[in-house]
């Protein structure tokens, strides 16, 4: 299972909660104080960032991996 991260940038205040709890270091707060998805391919869709985002700015949608589909 992979995750597709979407950010509502106008809501993000750059508090860094999502990047702190991300187990794969996918996210980082940039110098403008907004969250950036720096390694989207590493996302495992755990949803920790979305769960604790106090500003409802980050969302993770689960997407099935291509490989899994072909195997099935």
């Amino acid at each position, binding site marked *: 299972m992979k995750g597709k991260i979407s950010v509502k940038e106008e809501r993000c205040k750059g508090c860094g*909660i999502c990047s702190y709890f991300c187990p794969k270091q996918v996210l980082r707060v940039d110098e403008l104080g907004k969250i950036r998805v720096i390694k989207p391919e590493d996302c495992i869709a755990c949803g920790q960032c979305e769960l*604790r985002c106090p500003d409802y700015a980050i969302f993770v949608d689960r997407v099935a991996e291509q490989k899994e589909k072909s195997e099935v």
Partner: protein
Amino acid sequence: MVERSYEKFFRQNRLPHLWCPGCGNGIAMKAIVQAIEKIPELNQDNTVIVSGIGCSSRASGYMDFDTLHTAHGRAIPFATGIKLANPKLNVIVITGDGDCTAIGGNHFIHGCRRNIDLTVVLFNNNIYGMTGGQASPMTPLGKKATTAPYGSIDRPFNACHLAEAAGATYVARSTAYHVQHLVTMITGGIKNHGFSFIEAMVQCPTAYGRKNKMTDPAKMLEWMKDTAQMKNVWDKNPTDEKFPIGVLYQSTAGEIDYSSAYEKVIEMAGGI
């Protein structure tokens, strides 16, 4: 991106909210709307959100229900009025630690005593955030605030014990770290027929954190993770270093709630 279903309960034109970066109130507010969403009987027409004054109480402005932003500490009296006027409504009170236990302390204990069917969610950030970081009745011993520069010497309230002692029939605690647990606790509170009290520990990195060397909201959440213990675990080894979360008290005696008692009075008096 799939639009989240709880977004319909927010006033989109009011977002982003004005809380500081990393403030836990946003997490607790989302937990409330998710709890409402979980109970199919609740909708935007039969749910009323009442709040007092303070950082936490700004939440009513962002939630798309019938909402009431009332006087400082007086959220529970306003909510009592709504519930008595129309007992079919589901009334949820959002309040803060200063709002509920200091200026509204009396209203709080009498709400509990009457066992009126309200769900009170207390956002506990341990400080008066909006007015500049004064010590609240729930600032822990020794923690600093603008009015306690050498550390607070006032012993704090345990609001959960207070609610239980005053007669609330459902008392629970959770934290901003344990989001799904918090949703479950609030859902239980809404379902309970009587006075329900839920203490939601939230982080305040600006007013509380800056004074107490915890400016990183993520670290504050981590502290909650490390310090909170599920009630059944905490009960085996009660210690001051940790605090219990979960349903701390639920009455099984079947106390009558205030609206039902009042209906009987109306019947006796021969009203409609």
